[in-house]
């Protein structure tokens, strides 16, 4: 894997000798264009391919760089090479300013993001054309001297683009294999789940956008002098982003080299038609190729080729469950056997009469927690304390606010009012990824795995962002132990779509545990499982507590609640209805009424 950057640099150095072959200058220009598109497509892919935010605004960032260089050259007579970093910087600042606003609006994803960035392109283009930056007629740079990097002008442009392409590919590769890349791919699949697992989604998107824009701006700066006559009509259009998208999709957006492959293919194709004076036929051919590519290889050339060589990823058969058959233990547990942790006893035991109480320190305290959705009060001021090392059952009829409680504590929703203190630290208004980093993990009632990542990668991601592992490899080793813990080791290389519900629920558990949380929020993990699967899960949850986590357990399966919980709290209409040992609380008349309704006298 680490050979890749050497290969990129080596290829760059080898290609630098091409102008010495003495080919006609025309070939230098053609190769320049190929590399130019490699830079644009690859830079686009860093945000749009990796994180799935398809931008149609690449023309704007490219154009920002192009007009920065143009202005600095034509008005202030800067030396050309010095304008390039400024061009990159201006484009990056523009991108960050845009992203800082757009990425705050949660629903601007997918095609809405595409349209928004396209609209921004036209707005900036209109401003440029109407101000002295362009003036409406375009700007000529024919009197600007081209620096002598290569032997000729065309060789100079070729070498500049080669350097830019090498740099861009190195960056794209480095992000691809880094933690940043892993986070971006998680954002691609499920942004909310990524955030809850500790990925700082907002910051990552901004970083990716800034890098993407800076590289596009640099390409624009070089292109300004290459064109030597710049007009708005050629830059701030829909054709620049669409060409870039086309190249990336054709090559494959889920690989760092995909866009480069697509860029080479399309540019070569465009050239072969224009050279033969069949521009119109070329346009039609490119359209047809795009149609065929979408229909027959929607994942791109590169993945298609990779798949041909590798065959399908090995998918394990039904794995021998390494779980102890839990049936014999469920429901018949002795007090104390499940608490290997030395628990600092505070032993206040208010309203708790169950013999299986754990009297640890309060690890999480929610006080007066309110959450309203446009007038619907999901939580109407609840006070809940979770103690170190316990399994706290969170019960209540449907719509009583249990899942909302989990969503608020994990940072998925922001509390309307009230306070949440975890280990002495306030969590109110903290973004979800900080809460994850503080040591709280959660599962989703309906599993939300990252669909394009393998089971192992899913867990490794949680290890990387919540846990101790810093680099992806260590994360994978760590993740494997969690797969063994949950009995999914045989499915490590499978895709989540190949798992059944039971396995997907266990994947949720493995992912939650991989961040080594001190508090785990389980949202109806047993829902939809068969009785024997429930037994497996109950045994697993007990082992989770045994290895040191405190658990809040939202559940409707009473058998499991009785078997597992040390204490329960019951919600009704967003308020705390009862609190205490499970057996005793479930017999209280107000709890029975809440579940079954009032008996008519």
């Amino acid at each position, binding site marked *: 894997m680490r050979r890749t950057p050497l290969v990129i640099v080596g290829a760059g150095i080898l290609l630098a000798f091409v102008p010495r072959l003495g080919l006609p200058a025309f070939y230098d220009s053609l190769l320049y264009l190929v590399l130019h598109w490699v830079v644009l497509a690859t830079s686009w892919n860093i945000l749009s391919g990796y994180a799935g935010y398809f931008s149609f605004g690449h023309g704007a960032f490219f154009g920002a760089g192009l007009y920065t260089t143009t202005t600095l050259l034509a008005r202030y007579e800067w030396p050309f090479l010095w304008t390039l970093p400024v061009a990159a910087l201006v484009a990056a600042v523009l991108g960050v300013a845009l992203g800082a606003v757009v990425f705050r609006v949660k629903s601007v994803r997918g095609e809405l993001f595409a349209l928004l960035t396209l*609209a921004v392109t036209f707005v900036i283009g*209109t401003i440029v054309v109407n101000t002295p930056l362009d003036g409406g007629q375009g700007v000529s740079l024919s009197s600007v001297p081209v620096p002598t990097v290569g032997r000729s002008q065309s060789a100079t442009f070729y070498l500049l683009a080669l350097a830019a392409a090498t740099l861009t590919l190195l960056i794209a590769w480095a992000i691809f294999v880094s933690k940043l890349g892993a986070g971006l791919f998680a954002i691609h699949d499920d942004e909310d789940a990524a955030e809850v697992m500790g990925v700082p989604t907002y910051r990552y998107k901004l970083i990716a956008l800034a890098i993407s824009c800076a590289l596009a701006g640099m390409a624009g700066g070089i292109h300004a002098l290459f064109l030597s006559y710049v007009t708005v009509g050629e830059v701030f259009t829909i054709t620049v982003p669409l060409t870039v998208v086309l190249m990336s999709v054709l090559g494959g957006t889920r690989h760092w080299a995909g866009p480069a492959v697509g860029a080479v293919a399309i540019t070569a194709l465009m050239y072969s038609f224009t050279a033969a004076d069949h521009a119109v036929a070329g346009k039609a051919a490119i*359209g047809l190729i795009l149609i065929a590519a979408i229909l027959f290889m929607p994942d791109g050339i590169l993945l298609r080729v990779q798949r041909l060589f590798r065959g399908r990823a090995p998918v394990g058969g039904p794995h021998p469950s390494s779980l102890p058959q839990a049936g014999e233990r469920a429901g018949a547990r002795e007090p104390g056997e499940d608490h290997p942790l030395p628990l600092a006893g505070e032993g206040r035991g208010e309203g708790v009469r169950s013999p299986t109480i754990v009297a640890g320190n309060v690890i999480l305290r929610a006080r007066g927690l309110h959450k309203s959705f446009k007038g619907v009060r999901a939580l109407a001021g609840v006070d809940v304390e979770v103690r170190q090392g316990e399994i706290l059952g969170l019960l209540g009829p449907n719509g009583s606010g249990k899942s909302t409680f989990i969503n608020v504590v994990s940072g998925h929703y922001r509390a309307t009012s009230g306070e949440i203190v975890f280990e002495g630290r306030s969590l109110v208004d903290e973004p979800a990824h900080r809460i994850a980093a503080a040591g709280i993990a959660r599962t989703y009632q309906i599993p939300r795995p990252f669909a394009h990542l393998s089971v192992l990668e899913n867990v490794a991601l949680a290890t990387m962002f919540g846990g101790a592992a810093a680099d992806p490899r260590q994360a994978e080793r760590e993740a494997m132990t969690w797969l063994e813990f949950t009995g999914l080791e045989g499915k490590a290389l499978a895709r989540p779509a190949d798992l059944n519900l039971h396995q997907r629920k266990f994947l949720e558990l493995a992912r939650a545990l991989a961040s080594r949380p001190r508090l785990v929020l389980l949202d109806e993990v047993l829902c939809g499982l068969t009785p024997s699967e429930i037994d497996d899960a109950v045994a697993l949850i007990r082992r989770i507590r045994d290895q040191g986590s405190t658990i809040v357990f939202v559940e409707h399966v009473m058998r499991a609640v009785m078997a597992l919980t040390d204490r329960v709290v019951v919600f009704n209409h967003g308020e705390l209805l009862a609190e205490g040992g499970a057996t005793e609380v479930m017999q209280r008349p107000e709890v029975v009424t809440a579940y079954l309704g009032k008996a008519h006298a």
Partner: protein
Amino acid sequence: MPGFTLPSASLLAQSILSGIFVGALYGLMGLGLSLSWGLLRLINLAHFAFAFLAAYVSYQLAVAGIDPLLSLVVVVPAFFAIGAGLHWVMARFAVTPFNSLLLTFGLMGVIEAGIQGVWTADFRKLESVYSHMKFKVGVLYVPIPELITLVLAVGFSFGVWAVLRYTDLGKALRAAAEDAPIAAAFGIDQKRNALLLAGTCTALAGIAGVCLALSFTLAPAQIYAWVGVVFAAVMLGGLGRALAPLIAGTLIGVSEAVTMAVTAPSWAPIVSFTLLIFVLLLRPGRAA
């Protein structure tokens, strides 16, 4: 910044009127696009290319002496068939919304190349009996070709609105857009309905194309000029609603026309796209 000049009242009124006319065309173009996006989850960039293809067809028929309105008799069924065929292919390959955007972009390129191959890249202008007809109301000139566009746009928008709202077919389409599998479970033949709707959308593109030919000069490269502003109208109005593109299109047309009258024509695009940006940021739910 350009100088701001306050135009005379009559000039302003005239530009508002022309804004309404061009806005009607935005609305008519956006109608099929919005329906296909909102109800079929397919973003059809080729919609614009189809409109231009229809415009060129009616231009060619006009050269042969056939009234452009009569050309609708050919255009509507032909484009219905094209649209249904395209949808059949997309459904057959289960193309995702985003890929539909790319695929139809490819198709747009193919059609553009086709138009350029047949009619060259030169500007063409349809000449018909309506071309120079206009009448005067007070101080305002009302050109007939634009008036025809307005009448057709209003008529079809209300027609589609009524069908969606009051007929079983319309209800079935809206139900399927909400949740196709559930709609199917209730006995809705979504495949047939989708073909019907896709055909209708493309037929509407054809009608918009004929209107386009009535009042605009045609060139293959002009296809792209309409993409941004019509998308803005569609998004501004909200997807899948029949009257919305017309209303939003008119709003954009008028604000563009007033901007042009007050400042310079080159500032016109900024209005619609700034509007679009604000809609996306402040009311993103409208478009989702």
